[in-house]
């Protein structure tokens, strides 16, 4: 169990700055997520910590120990890969025992710890099975057990859920979070899925073009995005010029769709806007609709389902918005 310090880390591939001077301090036992679109450098940064990618500059420490100069196999890291990377030539128990054998743990203890790790991921009794007999979700559990059983200083997750179907993704992410918290191992998790990041993380580092865009708790980044990119990547938003809301200033503002309501459903003190309904989607729990304002700009609205509400394309509506939830972007 240890904190991680990343200092001035950079890496260039050809002319692309994959990681461009990143500084981060990750606390002991923290669940930290690197979030961003593909090509933002999050995977490169993770692979630097794992030892599969070299640094051009900077250093990485676990606690006070510098690790970026160590060979990957001596770093004491548990890594979970996107495609599971379960060894097909070994049975489940052999996979989980692999790292313990590399550490020359006694046979009796290996057997004990393998069974313990398998029950931890709810695969007790699966030791004799072969990887090709398992489902995707089970394979990922094997991969997690294999990473946990060596009691690593740090756990790394490289988009571990992206090959699973949507329902399984939601239940597995909760499980991963619970496991990590109960064991207290510092974890770094890479994903491009904003919702997944928000559900598992203590803190998120939002990355773009090799740089950190914003670092903070999930809700904080969502509610107070520091940039236009952060506002748009963390869920849906309306990016508006201030004059649309009758405000002054040159900067853009961000207004989340759920900060808008229909006139009848809004508190009296909220400012009003009027326009014409351009598009309606009733998704079940929420209804999304677009409203074209008088000046031609389009505003996206999201609100919980109301049994008696009728919304038709072309209808004239009045919207109200929560002034407290308007974010001014730099």
């Amino acid at each position: 169990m240890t904190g991680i310090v990343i200092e001035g880390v950079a890496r260039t591939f050809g002319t692309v700055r994959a990681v461009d001077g990143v500084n981060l301090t990750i606390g002991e036992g923290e669940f930290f997520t690197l979030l961003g679109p593909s090509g933002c450098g999050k995977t490169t940064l993770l692979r630097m910590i794992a030892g599969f990618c070299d640094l051009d500059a900077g250093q990485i420490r676990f606690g006070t120990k510098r690790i970026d100069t160590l060979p990957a196999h001596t770093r004491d890291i548990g890594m979970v890969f996107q495609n599971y990377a379960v060894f097909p030539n070994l049975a489940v128990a052999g996979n989980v025992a692999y790292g313990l054998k590399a550490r020359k743990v006694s046979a009796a203890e290996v057997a004990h710890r393998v069974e313990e790790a398998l029950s931890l991921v709810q695969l007790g009794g699966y030791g004799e099975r072969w990887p090709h007999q398992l489902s995707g979700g089970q394979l990922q559990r094997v991969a997690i057990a294999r990473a946990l059983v060596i009691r690593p200083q740090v756990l790394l997750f490289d988009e571990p859920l992206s090959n699973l179907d949507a329902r399984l993704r939601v239940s597995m992410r909760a499980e991963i979070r619970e496991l990590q918290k109960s064991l207290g191992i510092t974890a770094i998790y890479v994903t491009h899925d904003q919702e997944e990041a928000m559900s598992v993380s203590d803190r998120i580092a939002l990355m773009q073009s090799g740089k950190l865009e914003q670092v903070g708790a999930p809700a904080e980044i969502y509610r107070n995005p520091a940039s236009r990119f952060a506002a748009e990547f963390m869920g849906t938003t309306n990016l508006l010029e201030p004059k649309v809301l009758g405000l002054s200033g040159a900067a853009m503002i961000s207004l989340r769709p759920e900060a808008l309501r229909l006139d009848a459903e809004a508190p009296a003190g909220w400012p009003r806007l009027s326009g014409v309904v351009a598009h309606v989607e009733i998704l079940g729990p929420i209804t999304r609709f677009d409203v074209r304002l008088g000046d031609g700009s389009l505003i996206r609205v999201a609100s919980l389902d109301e049994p008696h509400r009728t919304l038709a394309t072309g209808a004239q509506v009045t919207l109200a918005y929560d002034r407290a939830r308007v974010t001014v972007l730099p």
Partner: protein
Amino acid sequence: MILTIPHQQRLPLAIAALGFLFLGLFLLYPLFNVFSASVLDGEGEKFTFANYVKILGRPFYRGAVANTLMIGVVATLTTIVVSVPFAFALARLPVPGKAAIIALAAMPLVLPSFVSAYAIVLLLGRAGVVTQWLNSWGIGFGSIYGAGGIILVYTLTLYPYVLLPTMAGFKAVDVSIEEAAQSLGSSPRRALWTVTLPIVVPSILAGGLLVFIETLENFGVPFVLAEDMPIFAVEAFKLFVGETAPNPSSAGVLGVLLILMTSLVLLIQRRFLANRRFATGARSAPPILKVGLGLRIAATIYCWSVVLLALVPFFAIVVLSFMEFRGPVLHPNFSTANFAALFERSTRPLLNTLMFATLAAIGVTLIGVPIAYVVTRLRSGLAAVLDVLATLPFAVAGTVLAIGFVVSFNSGWLILTGGPFIMVLAYTVRKIPFAVRSSSGILHQIDPSLEEASISLGRSPLQTFGRILVPLMLGGIMSGFVLTWVTIASELSATVVLYSGQWRTLTVVMFQALEGGGGGIATAAASTLIVVTLVPIALLYRLIRRYELAS
């Protein structure tokens, strides 16, 4: 500034260094010596182009170039003409016994082609069994010596090079592409000609180029069948053996020209074919077409005829080896005298063949598999250079490499001539391209994250190679080993240059018997060679079958 090598690149770089060392010493150095022999005078002292002028000035050698190229082009065309309909029938038509056809069609690739050529002589030559039988009925036919016979043997022994990739190509065409053509108004026949066939063309050409290169390099087939017709690889050998000057300048010239021709072909292949892969991403093989009974019968007869015709010569040799020979003349009586004559003098040639093939196959595996690892895993220009270098032996005729070996290792600090290792090393170098190709094919299928998982769990890259990659590659490595072993056992072109005294192999015995007119011993050696080839292949098939049934 201190040059530091990143940890994860140390193992591949170390292997690459060893690979460069081996290929530098046993490929580039001999080839360089062949080249320098060609540009030095007879005493090996003065630089000169006179050798080239002399050789190319003689109509005999210009004829050799023309003959070799002509035979190569025609044989390539005939193999394509034979194989493409065959491949289509196997991929898309209802032909009974496909699994058997495919298994039998692969056999000529591992059986020695000069044995087939010799069988053709015994059957259709001047004193051939079939020729005499036909003569007794008053029927005659043209000579099978010269270009016609050589092209016939090449077609019968090399057609799998085109058949197998083309069949795979036809199977990889997504049906929806043909359906799209038909829905746009093409008849099924037009769709085949305008859509399916063009997609398969790169596979056909790739196979055809392999055939062409094989014909340029082949020594045994023209040696048996060419008679007075000058053929490149044979003339290079004759020049080298006959050259009395200390510097084999004339043989060097022919060697360099031969390498130039094959490299040119390979270069064309890389330049024009490498990027022309029309992957259509077929999820399943296209369906077998519904055709009339007539076409179905015709296709069945065609496929079985080609497969069996190609194997008839080998079968005939085995039968003939149990007949009585008096000198080169055959008498139709059963006899084991040929085998008695072959083995009574010595069983050494057989033992040598088995030993050399085993040692060289081990060498090829130990060098080829790690090189394939570097080529697939190291992202660096170095890996690309190593890849080209490891493919180079493919462009070098066995005769030429062997000449280079003799020139390089008959004096100086490393003397190998006259011993067994020079043969083992030459075989190893010759077969490395096949090991690297097949192993890198397997490695491309293995996700690199498996290695990373192993490393991050605490195994060093070297341990990871041994514990994860080798077990995963084992099936492929074993089949590669057997195929290498088998092709080395019947290697002739380098062997005839390199053998000496007690280190004769079965192919040398056959070669000498052919030169001396001892038909009996030649057939006995040939059928022994066929058995030596088929036994490991049969074992491999059984092993694979058992493995497939088990999993």
